[in-house]
C-alpha cells in the first residue's frame, strides 16, 4: 500500500512527501500582530478595566502609569512563553509545560488556574457585551436593568459558545478589518477627546500632566499593587501572539518583529486612551460608570452617531475576547484529558466540526451558571469576580515564568543571552507576579475590598478567589488517586537540541 502523510508536527509521517504547500502555514508578520492584539482585545479590556482601576483607592490620576507598570511583568513572562514554545513548538500548552518542568501536580494546578480564570472573566465579558448591546440602540432602561443585561449576557455566551463549537472562523482578512476599526476608533476617540480638552475644556476636564505617567506619584504601594492586579488583565492573552510560530528569516533570533509591534501598539493604545478618558471629564466619571465607561464619554467626545462606532468597537472586541477565552479553556481541558489528568470525555473531538466539543460546551454551560449566579445574587459580584481573576492570572503566569527557568536550568549559564532571557526575565516576572499575588490576597481580605459587600466577613473578591482555589484543591485531591499514571510522571529538563543553532531556513518552517 502506497501511503503518504503530510503533517507539520511530523508525528506520524509514514513517508514524508516534500510539499511545503500542504503544511500548516507559518504565521506571517501582520497576522501575528493581529493575533496578538486581537487576543488581548484592547477595546473590551479598556471598557472593563478603566472604571475599576480609577476606583482603586489611592490611584488618583495615575491610571496611565498603572497601564505602563502592569506591562513590565507581562513582558518578562512573554520571554518565558517564547522559550517554552521553542521547546514545544506549535503552540504548546501551559499545562504540559508546567507538568514537564515542575511536576504533574503543579501542571494540573496551572491547568485548573487557566480554566478557573477563564470562567471568572466570562461574567464580565457577558455583562459588558449585554450593556453595550443596549447602548448601541440607546435603550437606557434595558441597559440599567440587571435582568435585561443578564438575559442579553446569557444569549451572548450561548452564541459565542456555539461559534467555537461549530468551528466558525473569521477569515484572516475579516479579523484584520475588525481589528483595524477597533484600533482606529480607540485612537480617534483619544485624539478627539484630547483636542477638546485643550480647546473647549468640557466639564470637569483636566489637562494631562507628566505625573499621570509616573508610577512613583501613586500615593501608596497598596494602591499600585491594586491597580497592577487589574492592569495585568488588559495584557492577558498577548502572550499567545508572541508564542505562535512566526514566519521569519531566522526564528532563533528571539521574538520577532510582530511581538515588538503588537507590544508598542498595545501599550500605546492603553496609555493614550486612559489619558484621554481621564482628561475629558476627570476620573469621577470613570469611577461612577465602571460597567460602561465608553457610553457616557462617547457622545461628548465623538458626538451622536460616531459614538456608536466606539460601542461597536467594544462589542467586536468583546466577541474576540470571548472566543479567545473559550478556545484556550477548551483546549486546556482537552490537553488535560489527553494526558489522562481529567476524564477522557473532555478530549472528545466533534466528528464533523472538529472542535473539542464536550470541553467547549462544558465551558459555555459553566460560564452561564457562574454568570447567572453572580448577577442574581448581586451584580457587583461581577466586578469582584473580575478582581479575583487577576489573582488567577498572576498565579499561572508567575508559575509559567518559574517553569521556564526550571525547564532550561542546565542551559542558563551557557551564554549571557540565555542567562538574561531564559533565566533573569522569566524569574523576575514570576517573582513580581508572585509579589502582586501575595500582596493582593492580603489586601483583598479586607471586608470593604469589593464592589459588593463583605461575604462571611471577608472581601468579596477574596472569597471568590478562595472558593475557586478550594474547588480546585478538592478536584486535585480526587484526581490524584484516579489518574495515577499522570501524577506519577517525573519532571524533566529541556531537550538540549532546542537551543542549537537553527537548521537552514528551508527546514526551519517544519516546526520540529
Amino acid at each position: 500500500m502506497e501511503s503518504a502523510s503530510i503533517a507539520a508536527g511530523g508525528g506520524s509521517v509514514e513517508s514524508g512527501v516534500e510539499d511545503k504547500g500542504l503544511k500548516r502555514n507559518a504565521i506571517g508578520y501582520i497576522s501575528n500582530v493581529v493575533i496578538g492584539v486581537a487576543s488581548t482585545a484592547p477595546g473590551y479590556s479598556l471598557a472593563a478595566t478603566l472604571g475599576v482601576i480609577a476606583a482603586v483607592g489611592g490611584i488618583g490620576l495615575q491610571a496611565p502609569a498603572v497601564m505602563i507598570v502592569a506591562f513590565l511583568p507581562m513582558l518578562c513572562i512573554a520571554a518565558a512563553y517564547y522559550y517554552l514554545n521553542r521547546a514545544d513548538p506549535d503552540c504548546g500548552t501551559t499545562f504540559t509545560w508546567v507538568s514537564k518542568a515542575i511536576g504533574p501536580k503543579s501542571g494540573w494546578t496551572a491547568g485548573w488556574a487557566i480554566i478557573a480564570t477563564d470562567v471568572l472573566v466570562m461574567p464580565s465579558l457577558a455583562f459588558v457585551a449585554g450593556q453595550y448591546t443596549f447602548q448601541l440602540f440607546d435603550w437606557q432602561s434595558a441597559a440599567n436593568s440587571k435582568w435585561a443585561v443578564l438575559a442579553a449576557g446569557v444569549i451572548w455566551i450561548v452564541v459565542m459558545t456555539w461559534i467555537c463549537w461549530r468551528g466558525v472562523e473569521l477569515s484572516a482578512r475579516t479579523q484584520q478589518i475588525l481589528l483595524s476599526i477597533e484600533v482606529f476608533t480607540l485612537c480617534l476617540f483619544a485624539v478627539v477627546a484630547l483636542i477638546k480638552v485643550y480647546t473647549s475644556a468640557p466639564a470637569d476636564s483636566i489637562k494631562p500632566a507628566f505625573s499621570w505617567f509616573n508610577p512613583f506619584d501613586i500615593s501608596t504601594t497598596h494602591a499600585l499593587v491594586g491597580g497592577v492586579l487589574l492592569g495585568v488583565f488588559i495584557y492577558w492573552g498577548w502572550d499567545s501572539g508572541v508564542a505562535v510560530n512566526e514566519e521569519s528569516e531566522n526564528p532563533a533570533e528571539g521574538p520577532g518583529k510582530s511581538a515588538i509591534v503588537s507590544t508598542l501598539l498595545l501599550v500605546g493604545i492603553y496609555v493614550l486612551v486612559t489619558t484621554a478618558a481621564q482628561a475629558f471629564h476627570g476620573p469621577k466619571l470613570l469611577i461612577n460608570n465602571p460597567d460602561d465607561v465608553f457610553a457616557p464619554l462617547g457622545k461628548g467626545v465623538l458626538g451622536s452617531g460616531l459614538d456608536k462606532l466606539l460601542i461597536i468597537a467594544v462589542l467586536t472586541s468583546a466577541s474576540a475576547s470571548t472566543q479567545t477565552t473559550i478556545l484556550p479553556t477548551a483546549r486546556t481541558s482537552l490537553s488535560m484529558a489527553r494526558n489522562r489528568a481529567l476524564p477522557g470525555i473532555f478530549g472528545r473531538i466533534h466528528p464533523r466540526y472538529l472542535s473539542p466539543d464536550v470541553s467547549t460546551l462544558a465551558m459555555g454551560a459553566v460560564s452561564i451558571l457562574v454568570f447567572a449566579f453572580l448577577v442574581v445574587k448581586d451584580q457587583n459580584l461581577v466586578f469582584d469576580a473580575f478582581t479575583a481573576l487577576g489573582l488567577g492570572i498572576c498565579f499561572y503566569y508567575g508559575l509559567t515564568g518559574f517553569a521556564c527557568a526550571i525547564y532550561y536550568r542546565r542551559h542558563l549559564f551557557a551564554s549571557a543571552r540565555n542567562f538574561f532571557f531564559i533565566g533573569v526575565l522569566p524569574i523576575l516576572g514570576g517573582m513580581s507576579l508572585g509579589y502582586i499575588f501575595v500582596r493582593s490576597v492580603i489586601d483583598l481580605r479586607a471586608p470593604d475590598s469589593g464592589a459588593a459587600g463583605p461575604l462571611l466577613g471577608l472581601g468579596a473578591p477574596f472569597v471568590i478567589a478562595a472558593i475557586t482555589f478550594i474547588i480546585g484543591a478538592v478536584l486535585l485531591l480526587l484526581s490524584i488517586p484516579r489518574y495515577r499514571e499522570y501524577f506519577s510522571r517525573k519532571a524533566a529538563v529541556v531537550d538540549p537540541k532546542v537551543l542549537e543553532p537553527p537548521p537552514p531556513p528551508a527546514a526551519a518552517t517544519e516546526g520540529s
Partner: protein
Amino acid sequence: MAGIIVGYDGSDGAEAALRSAVDLSKRLGERLTVVFAFEANPVGGEALDYWAALREHGEGRLAKALEEAKAAGVEAERVLAERPPADALSELARERDAAMIVVGSRGERPIAAAILGSTPHRLLHLSETPVLVVRG
C-alpha cells in the same frame, strides 16, 4: 501523472464522495488519493494537544476510507494535510496534475455556506482542476 483526489472527513457527504471516487477510479483506471485536511485557529494558543488530537482523528478517518476503497478493489493513497481543506485539495490536485477533485456536499444553503464556510463552495472558485460535487 493524473489521478483522482477525494476530500474525505467521514461525514455523509464525504462517504458519498468516496463511493463515487472509488467507482470512477476503477472505471477510468486512475490512481486514487484520499485527503483529510483540517485547520485549527491559532488564535487562543494552547493548541499543541488539540492539533495532535486532530491529526489522530484524521488518520483514523483516512484508515477507514482506505479500507472501504480496498474492499471495493481500489488501492488508494492517503494524505493528511494541515491546511484549509479547499486550499489543500486544489494545491495537491494542481501539483499532481490530477484529473479531478471529488468532494461531498452537505446540501448547505448558499447563505449559510457563505457565512459558515463551505469547502465545495470555496473549491469551485479556487480550483483549476475540475471539481465533482457529490450530494450526501
